[in-house]
Protein backbone atom coordinates (compact mmCIF):
# COMPACT_ATOMS: atom_id res chain seq x y z
CA UNK A 1 0.00 0.00 0.00
CA UNK A 2 2.75 2.43 0.92
CA UNK A 3 4.51 2.07 -2.38
CA UNK A 4 1.35 1.82 -4.46
CA UNK A 5 1.73 5.22 -6.10
CA UNK A 6 5.34 4.52 -7.05
CA UNK A 7 4.19 1.28 -8.70
CA UNK A 8 1.38 3.11 -10.51
CA UNK A 9 3.81 5.74 -11.80
CA UNK A 10 6.20 3.04 -13.02
CA UNK A 11 3.36 1.13 -14.74
CA UNK A 12 2.06 4.30 -16.39
CA UNK A 13 5.55 5.10 -17.62
CA UNK A 14 5.99 1.62 -19.06
CA UNK A 15 2.55 1.70 -20.71
CA UNK A 16 3.29 5.09 -22.31
CA UNK A 17 6.68 3.92 -23.52
CA UNK A 18 5.26 0.75 -25.07
CA UNK A 19 2.24 2.44 -26.62
CA UNK A 20 4.46 3.68 -29.43
CA UNK A 21 2.99 7.17 -29.14
CA UNK A 22 6.40 8.70 -28.68
CA UNK A 23 9.73 7.67 -30.07
CA UNK A 24 11.86 5.63 -27.66
CA UNK A 25 14.39 8.42 -28.11
CA UNK A 26 12.06 10.65 -26.10
CA UNK A 27 10.45 8.08 -23.86
CA UNK A 28 12.51 4.92 -23.37
CA UNK A 29 10.96 1.91 -21.67
CA UNK A 30 12.06 1.00 -18.14
CA UNK A 31 13.57 -2.18 -19.51
CA UNK A 32 16.01 -0.22 -21.67
CA UNK A 33 16.84 2.12 -18.79
CA UNK A 34 17.48 -0.91 -16.59
CA UNK A 35 19.78 -2.45 -19.21
CA UNK A 36 21.72 0.81 -19.40
CA UNK A 37 21.91 0.85 -15.62
CA UNK A 38 23.52 -2.60 -15.64
CA UNK A 39 25.85 -1.44 -18.37
CA UNK A 40 26.74 1.58 -16.23
CA UNK A 41 27.77 -0.56 -13.30
CA UNK A 42 29.71 -3.01 -15.47
CA UNK A 43 31.93 -0.41 -17.12
CA UNK A 44 34.91 0.95 -15.26
CA UNK A 45 34.79 4.35 -17.05
CA UNK A 46 31.29 5.10 -15.88
CA UNK A 47 32.12 3.98 -12.34
CA UNK A 48 35.01 6.40 -12.53
CA UNK A 49 32.56 9.20 -13.45
CA UNK A 50 30.52 8.39 -10.37
CA UNK A 51 33.67 8.31 -8.24
CA UNK A 52 34.77 11.73 -9.53
CA UNK A 53 31.40 13.29 -8.64
CA UNK A 54 31.31 11.61 -5.25
CA UNK A 55 34.85 12.74 -4.50
CA UNK A 56 34.07 16.36 -5.40
CA UNK A 57 30.86 16.43 -3.38
CA UNK A 58 32.49 14.79 -0.38
CA UNK A 59 35.64 16.94 -0.43
CA UNK A 60 33.63 20.16 -0.49
CA UNK A 61 31.18 18.88 2.10
CA UNK A 62 33.91 17.70 4.49
CA UNK A 63 35.74 21.04 4.29
CA UNK A 64 32.48 22.90 4.88
CA UNK A 65 31.64 20.60 7.80
CA UNK A 66 34.95 21.30 9.56
CA UNK A 67 34.94 25.04 8.85
CA UNK A 68 31.20 25.47 9.39
CA UNK A 69 31.00 23.64 12.72
CA UNK A 70 34.04 25.53 14.03
CA UNK A 71 32.69 28.89 12.91
CA UNK A 72 29.17 28.11 14.17
CA UNK A 73 30.38 27.08 17.62
CA UNK A 74 32.70 30.09 17.89
CA UNK A 75 29.80 32.36 16.90
CA UNK A 76 27.57 30.64 19.43
CA UNK A 77 30.03 31.21 22.26
CA UNK A 78 31.26 34.70 21.39
CA UNK A 79 28.92 37.65 21.03
CA UNK A 80 31.51 39.65 19.14
CA UNK A 81 32.08 36.96 16.51
CA UNK A 82 28.34 36.42 16.22
CA UNK A 83 27.65 40.10 15.60
CA UNK A 84 30.52 40.15 13.10
CA UNK A 85 29.66 37.05 11.08
CA UNK A 86 25.90 36.66 11.47
CA UNK A 87 25.01 39.65 9.23
CA UNK A 88 27.39 38.27 6.60
CA UNK A 89 25.81 34.82 6.56
CA UNK A 90 22.18 35.83 6.91
CA UNK A 91 22.59 38.76 4.51
CA UNK A 92 24.03 36.69 1.67
CA UNK A 93 22.01 33.55 2.41
CA UNK A 94 19.45 34.20 -0.32
CA UNK A 95 22.09 35.12 -2.90
CA UNK A 96 22.81 32.30 -5.37
CA UNK A 97 26.45 31.45 -4.78
CA UNK A 98 26.40 29.61 -8.08
CA UNK A 99 26.93 32.99 -9.77
CA UNK A 100 30.49 32.92 -8.40
CA UNK A 101 31.28 29.78 -10.39
CA UNK A 102 32.65 31.54 -13.52
CA UNK A 103 34.96 33.59 -11.31
CA UNK A 104 35.99 30.45 -9.42
CA UNK A 105 36.92 28.88 -12.76
CA UNK A 106 39.36 31.71 -13.37
CA UNK A 107 40.77 31.53 -9.86
CA UNK A 108 40.87 27.75 -9.29
CA UNK A 109 40.97 26.42 -12.84
CA UNK A 110 38.45 24.33 -14.73
CA UNK A 111 39.23 21.06 -12.91
CA UNK A 112 37.94 19.72 -9.62
CA UNK A 113 39.15 22.58 -7.46
CA UNK A 114 36.65 25.21 -8.65
CA UNK A 115 33.80 22.74 -8.12
CA UNK A 116 35.00 21.72 -4.67
CA UNK A 117 35.29 25.41 -3.76
CA UNK A 118 31.72 26.10 -4.81
CA UNK A 119 30.41 23.02 -2.96
CA UNK A 120 32.29 24.23 0.11
CA UNK A 121 30.72 27.68 -0.10
CA UNK A 122 27.16 26.42 -0.65
CA UNK A 123 27.40 23.83 2.14
CA UNK A 124 28.97 26.30 4.56
CA UNK A 125 25.81 28.41 4.95
CA UNK A 126 23.34 25.88 6.35
CA UNK A 127 26.01 24.27 8.55
CA UNK A 128 27.21 27.57 10.06
CA UNK A 129 23.74 28.99 10.65
CA UNK A 130 22.19 25.88 12.18
CA UNK A 131 25.28 25.08 14.30
CA UNK A 132 25.33 28.69 15.50
CA UNK A 133 21.74 28.45 16.70
CA UNK A 134 22.50 25.16 18.44
CA UNK A 135 25.62 26.45 20.18
CA UNK A 136 23.91 29.70 21.18
CA UNK A 137 20.92 28.02 22.79
CA UNK A 138 22.83 25.64 25.05
CA UNK A 139 21.00 25.27 28.34
CA UNK A 140 22.58 27.77 30.75
CA UNK A 141 22.03 25.59 33.77
CA UNK A 142 24.34 22.99 32.22
CA UNK A 143 27.03 25.61 31.58
CA UNK A 144 26.73 27.02 35.12
CA UNK A 145 26.86 23.54 36.65
CA UNK A 146 29.99 22.68 34.69
CA UNK A 147 31.65 25.94 35.69
CA UNK A 148 30.66 25.36 39.25
CA UNK A 149 32.24 21.92 39.16
CA UNK A 150 35.48 23.56 38.04
CA UNK A 151 35.46 22.62 34.37
CA UNK A 152 37.83 24.64 32.15
CA UNK A 153 36.85 26.23 28.86
CA UNK A 154 38.12 23.28 26.81
CA UNK A 155 36.22 20.77 28.93
CA UNK A 156 33.02 22.83 28.72
CA UNK A 157 33.36 23.01 24.95
CA UNK A 158 34.00 19.28 24.57
CA UNK A 159 31.62 17.91 27.20
CA UNK A 160 28.75 20.42 27.15
CA UNK A 161 28.62 22.69 24.09
CA UNK A 162 29.41 20.18 21.36
CA UNK A 163 27.09 17.41 22.64
CA UNK A 164 24.30 19.95 23.21
CA UNK A 165 24.72 21.35 19.72
CA UNK A 166 25.16 17.92 18.09
CA UNK A 167 21.52 17.48 17.00
CA UNK A 168 21.70 20.90 15.34
CA UNK A 169 25.04 20.11 13.76
CA UNK A 170 23.62 16.98 12.18
CA UNK A 171 20.50 18.84 11.06
CA UNK A 172 22.82 21.25 9.26
CA UNK A 173 24.72 18.35 7.70
CA UNK A 174 21.48 16.85 6.51
CA UNK A 175 20.52 20.07 4.74
CA UNK A 176 24.00 20.50 3.29
CA UNK A 177 24.63 17.00 1.96
CA UNK A 178 22.00 17.05 -0.84
CA UNK A 179 23.17 20.59 -1.63
CA UNK A 180 26.68 19.22 -2.19
CA UNK A 181 25.36 16.69 -4.70
CA UNK A 182 23.22 19.33 -6.45
CA UNK A 183 26.11 21.75 -6.82
CA UNK A 184 28.46 19.06 -8.13
CA UNK A 185 25.94 17.94 -10.74
CA UNK A 186 25.14 21.52 -11.81
CA UNK A 187 28.77 22.55 -12.15
CA UNK A 188 29.55 19.36 -14.08
CA UNK A 189 26.64 20.08 -16.41
CA UNK A 190 27.85 23.63 -16.96
CA UNK A 191 31.51 22.99 -17.58
CA UNK A 192 33.33 19.74 -17.15
CA UNK A 193 34.80 16.81 -18.99
CA UNK A 194 34.00 14.19 -16.35
CA UNK A 195 31.58 13.36 -13.57
CA UNK A 196 27.94 12.30 -13.52
CA UNK A 197 26.56 15.71 -14.55
CA UNK A 198 28.78 15.62 -17.60
CA UNK A 199 27.76 12.02 -18.33
CA UNK A 200 24.08 13.05 -18.30
CA UNK A 201 24.65 15.97 -20.66
CA UNK A 202 26.83 13.81 -22.93
CA UNK A 203 24.21 11.08 -23.13
CA UNK A 204 21.60 13.71 -23.98
CA UNK A 205 23.64 15.26 -26.76
CA UNK A 206 24.12 11.82 -28.32
CA UNK A 207 20.33 11.26 -27.91
CA UNK A 208 20.83 8.24 -25.66
CA UNK A 209 17.85 9.03 -23.48
CA UNK A 210 17.89 5.61 -21.84
CA UNK A 211 21.52 6.09 -20.87
CA UNK A 212 20.77 9.58 -19.57
CA UNK A 213 17.93 8.25 -17.42
CA UNK A 214 20.28 5.57 -16.09
CA UNK A 215 22.66 8.35 -15.03
CA UNK A 216 19.74 10.16 -13.39
CA UNK A 217 18.94 6.98 -11.47
CA UNK A 218 22.57 6.65 -10.39
CA UNK A 219 22.65 10.27 -9.18
CA UNK A 220 19.42 9.68 -7.24
CA UNK A 221 20.81 6.49 -5.71
CA UNK A 222 23.97 8.29 -4.63
CA UNK A 223 21.84 11.06 -3.07
CA UNK A 224 19.68 8.55 -1.19
CA UNK A 225 22.68 6.49 -0.08
CA UNK A 226 24.51 9.53 1.30
CA UNK A 227 21.42 10.66 3.19
CA UNK A 228 20.88 7.17 4.60
CA UNK A 229 24.52 6.94 5.72
CA UNK A 230 24.34 10.33 7.38
CA UNK A 231 21.14 9.47 9.25
CA UNK A 232 22.68 6.20 10.45
CA UNK A 233 25.81 7.96 11.62
CA UNK A 234 23.68 10.53 13.39
CA UNK A 235 21.62 7.90 15.18
CA UNK A 236 24.81 6.28 16.48
CA UNK A 237 26.49 9.46 17.63
CA UNK A 238 23.43 11.37 18.87
CA UNK A 239 21.72 8.33 20.34
CA UNK A 240 20.07 10.29 23.15
CA UNK A 241 17.80 12.29 20.89
CA UNK A 242 15.41 10.74 18.40
CA UNK A 243 15.07 12.24 14.96
CA UNK A 244 11.47 13.34 14.54
CA UNK A 245 11.31 13.55 10.79
CA UNK A 246 9.55 11.28 8.39
CA UNK A 247 11.41 8.52 6.64
CA UNK A 248 10.54 6.00 4.08
Amino acid at each position, binding site marked *: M*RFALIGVVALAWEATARSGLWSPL*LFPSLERVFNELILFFSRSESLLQAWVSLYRAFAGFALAAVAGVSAGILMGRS*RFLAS*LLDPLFSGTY*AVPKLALFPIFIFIFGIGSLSKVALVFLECLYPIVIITYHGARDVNRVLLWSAQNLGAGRGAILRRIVIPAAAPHIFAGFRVALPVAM*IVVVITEMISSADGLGYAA*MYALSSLK*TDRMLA*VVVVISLVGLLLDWMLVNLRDRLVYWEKLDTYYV
Partner: protein
Amino acid sequence: MPISASAKLALARTGVWLLLLLLWELAWRWGLPQYVLGPLEILKHFFAALGSRELYGHIGASLARALPGFAIGAAAGIALGLAAGVARAFDRMLSPLIFLTYPVPKIVMLPLFMLWFGIGDLSKVLIIALACFYPVFINAYYGVKVTPTILVWSALNLGARQSEIFGRVVVPSALPMIFSGLRVSLALSFIVMFATEMINARSGLGHLIRDAENSLRFDLMYVSLASIAVLGYAGDHLLTFVRGRVLVWHEQPA
Protein backbone atom coordinates in the same frame (compact mmCIF):
# COMPACT_ATOMS: atom_id res chain seq x y z
CA MET B 1 28.45 60.14 26.82
CA PRO B 2 28.45 56.49 27.76
CA ILE B 3 28.05 54.05 24.88
CA SER B 4 25.90 50.98 25.40
CA ALA B 5 27.41 47.54 24.94
CA SER B 6 25.37 46.75 21.85
CA ALA B 7 26.36 50.04 20.21
CA LYS B 8 30.00 49.23 20.89
CA LEU B 9 29.52 45.83 19.31
CA ALA B 10 27.92 47.36 16.21
CA LEU B 11 30.74 49.88 15.97
CA ALA B 12 33.42 47.19 16.18
CA ARG B 13 31.56 45.11 13.61
CA THR B 14 31.29 47.96 11.12
CA GLY B 15 34.94 48.78 11.70
CA VAL B 16 36.10 45.25 10.91
CA TRP B 17 34.02 45.11 7.73
CA LEU B 18 35.21 48.50 6.52
CA LEU B 19 38.79 47.44 7.21
CA LEU B 20 38.34 44.26 5.16
CA LEU B 21 36.81 46.20 2.26
CA LEU B 22 39.67 48.69 2.45
CA LEU B 23 42.22 45.86 2.36
CA TRP B 24 40.45 44.37 -0.65
CA GLU B 25 40.49 47.73 -2.43
CA LEU B 26 44.18 48.27 -1.59
CA ALA B 27 45.08 44.75 -2.71
CA TRP B 28 43.30 45.42 -5.97
CA ARG B 29 45.19 48.68 -6.53
CA TRP B 30 48.41 46.99 -5.62
CA GLY B 31 47.83 44.38 -8.26
CA LEU B 32 45.44 41.42 -8.11
CA PRO B 33 44.90 39.13 -11.12
CA GLN B 34 42.80 40.70 -13.85
CA TYR B 35 39.70 38.64 -12.99
CA VAL B 36 39.38 39.97 -9.44
CA LEU B 37 37.98 43.49 -9.33
CA GLY B 38 38.06 45.88 -6.40
CA PRO B 39 34.84 46.79 -4.57
CA LEU B 40 34.77 50.38 -5.90
CA GLU B 41 35.38 49.15 -9.44
CA ILE B 42 32.49 46.65 -9.13
CA LEU B 43 30.18 49.40 -7.86
CA LYS B 44 31.22 51.70 -10.71
CA HIS B 45 30.50 49.05 -13.36
CA PHE B 46 27.25 48.07 -11.68
CA PHE B 47 25.89 51.60 -11.67
CA ALA B 48 27.07 52.14 -15.24
CA ALA B 49 25.16 48.99 -16.25
CA LEU B 50 22.06 50.16 -14.36
CA GLY B 51 21.98 53.12 -16.74
CA SER B 52 21.94 50.90 -19.83
CA ARG B 53 18.90 49.15 -21.21
CA GLU B 54 20.63 45.80 -21.85
CA LEU B 55 20.81 44.77 -18.21
CA TYR B 56 17.07 45.21 -17.67
CA GLY B 57 16.36 42.90 -20.61
CA HIS B 58 18.43 40.16 -18.97
CA ILE B 59 16.87 40.73 -15.56
CA GLY B 60 13.40 40.63 -17.12
CA ALA B 61 14.16 37.39 -18.95
CA SER B 62 15.50 35.82 -15.75
CA LEU B 63 12.52 36.88 -13.65
CA ALA B 64 10.13 35.65 -16.35
CA ARG B 65 11.56 32.17 -15.75
CA ALA B 66 12.12 32.19 -11.99
CA LEU B 67 8.83 33.74 -10.84
CA PRO B 68 6.34 31.57 -12.81
CA GLY B 69 8.35 28.50 -11.83
CA PHE B 70 8.27 29.56 -8.19
CA ALA B 71 4.54 30.33 -8.36
CA ILE B 72 3.63 26.98 -9.91
CA GLY B 73 5.87 24.97 -7.59
CA ALA B 74 4.70 26.86 -4.50
CA ALA B 75 1.00 26.56 -5.37
CA ALA B 76 1.30 22.83 -6.03
CA GLY B 77 3.40 22.39 -2.88
CA ILE B 78 0.92 24.21 -0.65
CA ALA B 79 -2.13 22.44 -2.12
CA LEU B 80 -0.69 18.92 -2.02
CA GLY B 81 1.15 19.46 1.27
CA LEU B 82 -2.03 20.62 3.03
CA ALA B 83 -4.01 17.78 1.47
CA ALA B 84 -1.43 15.18 2.53
CA GLY B 85 -1.31 16.67 6.00
CA VAL B 86 -5.09 16.47 6.42
CA ALA B 87 -6.16 13.34 4.55
CA ARG B 88 -4.47 10.22 5.87
CA ALA B 89 -5.21 8.02 2.85
CA PHE B 90 -3.77 10.64 0.49
CA ASP B 91 -0.75 10.99 2.78
CA ARG B 92 -0.02 7.28 2.69
CA MET B 93 -0.25 7.26 -1.09
CA LEU B 94 1.73 10.37 -1.93
CA SER B 95 4.31 10.82 0.81
CA PRO B 96 6.54 7.79 0.10
CA LEU B 97 7.04 9.05 -3.46
CA ILE B 98 7.82 12.59 -2.29
CA PHE B 99 10.17 11.63 0.51
CA LEU B 100 11.94 9.07 -1.66
CA THR B 101 12.68 11.63 -4.38
CA TYR B 102 13.43 14.46 -1.95
CA PRO B 103 17.24 14.07 -1.74
CA VAL B 104 17.53 13.72 -5.52
CA PRO B 105 19.02 16.80 -7.21
CA LYS B 106 16.06 17.93 -9.34
CA ILE B 107 18.33 19.70 -11.80
CA VAL B 108 19.38 16.32 -13.26
CA MET B 109 15.92 16.17 -14.84
CA LEU B 110 16.78 19.23 -16.94
CA PRO B 111 18.20 17.24 -19.90
CA LEU B 112 15.03 15.11 -19.97
CA PHE B 113 12.79 18.18 -19.68
CA MET B 114 14.73 19.75 -22.54
CA LEU B 115 13.92 16.70 -24.67
CA TRP B 116 10.25 16.73 -23.73
CA PHE B 117 9.44 20.43 -23.58
CA GLY B 118 12.06 21.92 -25.86
CA ILE B 119 15.10 24.02 -25.08
CA GLY B 120 13.05 27.21 -24.61
CA ASP B 121 11.60 28.72 -21.47
CA LEU B 122 9.01 26.01 -20.78
CA SER B 123 11.55 23.38 -19.72
CA LYS B 124 13.27 25.93 -17.48
CA VAL B 125 10.05 27.08 -15.82
CA LEU B 126 8.99 23.48 -15.19
CA ILE B 127 12.33 22.43 -13.69
CA ILE B 128 12.23 25.50 -11.41
CA ALA B 129 8.66 24.56 -10.41
CA LEU B 130 9.76 21.00 -9.65
CA ALA B 131 12.65 22.19 -7.49
CA CYS B 132 10.44 24.72 -5.65
CA PHE B 133 7.70 22.19 -5.01
CA TYR B 134 9.61 20.05 -2.48
CA PRO B 135 10.48 22.52 0.31
CA VAL B 136 6.98 24.04 0.21
CA PHE B 137 5.29 20.64 0.21
CA ILE B 138 7.32 19.36 3.15
CA ASN B 139 6.83 22.52 5.20
CA ALA B 140 3.08 22.68 4.52
CA TYR B 141 2.84 18.97 5.41
CA TYR B 142 4.64 19.37 8.75
CA GLY B 143 2.82 22.64 9.34
CA VAL B 144 -0.47 20.74 9.35
CA LYS B 145 1.02 17.94 11.45
CA VAL B 146 2.08 20.31 14.25
CA THR B 147 -1.36 21.91 14.54
CA PRO B 148 -2.18 21.73 18.27
CA THR B 149 -4.85 19.06 18.74
CA ILE B 150 -6.49 21.13 21.42
CA LEU B 151 -7.32 23.87 18.91
CA VAL B 152 -9.03 21.33 16.65
CA TRP B 153 -10.95 19.93 19.62
CA SER B 154 -12.03 23.38 20.74
CA ALA B 155 -13.26 24.21 17.24
CA LEU B 156 -15.15 20.89 17.11
CA ASN B 157 -16.63 21.62 20.49
CA LEU B 158 -17.82 25.02 19.31
CA GLY B 159 -19.64 23.26 16.48
CA ALA B 160 -17.33 24.13 13.59
CA ARG B 161 -17.73 22.19 10.37
CA GLN B 162 -14.82 20.31 8.74
CA SER B 163 -14.28 23.05 6.15
CA GLU B 164 -14.30 25.74 8.85
CA ILE B 165 -11.73 23.84 10.90
CA PHE B 166 -9.53 23.54 7.83
CA GLY B 167 -9.82 27.21 6.86
CA ARG B 168 -9.72 28.80 10.30
CA VAL B 169 -7.60 26.44 12.38
CA VAL B 170 -5.39 24.18 10.26
CA VAL B 171 -4.29 26.62 7.57
CA PRO B 172 -3.48 29.53 9.92
CA SER B 173 -1.45 27.27 12.18
CA ALA B 174 0.44 25.86 9.19
CA LEU B 175 1.17 29.30 7.72
CA PRO B 176 4.42 30.04 9.59
CA MET B 177 5.97 26.83 8.30
CA ILE B 178 4.56 27.41 4.82
CA PHE B 179 6.33 30.76 4.79
CA SER B 180 9.66 29.17 5.76
CA GLY B 181 9.15 26.73 2.90
CA LEU B 182 8.41 29.60 0.53
CA ARG B 183 11.55 31.35 1.66
CA VAL B 184 13.74 28.32 0.89
CA SER B 185 11.98 27.84 -2.44
CA LEU B 186 12.37 31.45 -3.53
CA ALA B 187 16.13 31.25 -3.00
CA LEU B 188 16.13 27.89 -4.78
CA SER B 189 14.21 29.30 -7.74
CA PHE B 190 16.98 31.85 -8.33
CA ILE B 191 19.68 29.17 -8.06
CA VAL B 192 17.97 26.82 -10.50
CA MET B 193 17.13 29.71 -12.81
CA PHE B 194 20.77 30.71 -12.87
CA ALA B 195 21.89 27.12 -13.45
CA THR B 196 19.52 26.52 -16.35
CA GLU B 197 20.55 29.79 -17.94
CA MET B 198 24.21 28.93 -17.62
CA ILE B 199 23.61 25.52 -19.15
CA ASN B 200 21.56 26.77 -22.10
CA ALA B 201 19.84 30.09 -22.74
CA ARG B 202 20.05 33.09 -25.04
CA SER B 203 19.08 35.69 -22.44
CA GLY B 204 19.01 36.18 -18.71
CA LEU B 205 21.62 36.82 -16.05
CA GLY B 206 23.06 33.29 -16.25
CA HIS B 207 23.55 33.73 -19.97
CA LEU B 208 25.11 37.15 -19.41
CA ILE B 209 27.71 35.76 -17.02
CA ARG B 210 28.59 32.92 -19.43
CA ASP B 211 28.82 35.35 -22.32
CA ALA B 212 31.04 37.66 -20.31
CA GLU B 213 33.20 34.70 -19.27
CA ASN B 214 33.69 33.62 -22.87
CA SER B 215 34.61 37.10 -24.06
CA LEU B 216 36.72 37.81 -20.94
CA ARG B 217 34.55 40.81 -20.03
CA PHE B 218 35.24 40.63 -16.31
CA ASP B 219 33.30 43.83 -15.63
CA LEU B 220 30.14 42.24 -17.05
CA MET B 221 30.69 39.09 -14.95
CA TYR B 222 30.64 41.19 -11.82
CA VAL B 223 27.63 43.17 -13.04
CA SER B 224 25.70 39.93 -13.49
CA LEU B 225 26.89 38.70 -10.10
CA ALA B 226 25.86 41.95 -8.40
CA SER B 227 22.44 41.90 -10.12
CA ILE B 228 21.62 38.36 -9.01
CA ALA B 229 22.83 39.18 -5.50
CA VAL B 230 20.55 42.22 -5.35
CA LEU B 231 17.61 40.24 -6.76
CA GLY B 232 18.07 37.38 -4.30
CA TYR B 233 18.41 39.77 -1.39
CA ALA B 234 15.42 41.89 -2.43
CA GLY B 235 13.21 38.85 -3.04
CA ASP B 236 14.03 37.45 0.37
CA HIS B 237 13.27 40.75 2.08
CA LEU B 238 10.02 41.19 0.15
CA LEU B 239 8.90 37.74 1.27
CA THR B 240 9.85 38.44 4.89
CA PHE B 241 7.90 41.70 4.67
CA VAL B 242 4.81 39.93 3.32
CA ARG B 243 5.13 37.33 6.07
CA GLY B 244 5.20 40.06 8.68
CA ARG B 245 1.96 41.46 7.19
CA VAL B 246 0.19 38.12 6.91
CA LEU B 247 1.34 36.59 10.17
CA VAL B 248 0.58 39.54 12.41
CA TRP B 249 -0.22 37.23 15.29
CA HIS B 250 2.93 35.16 15.00
CA GLU B 251 6.10 36.09 16.84
CA GLN B 252 8.97 36.30 14.41
CA PRO B 253 11.82 33.97 15.33
CA ALA B 254 15.14 35.78 15.59
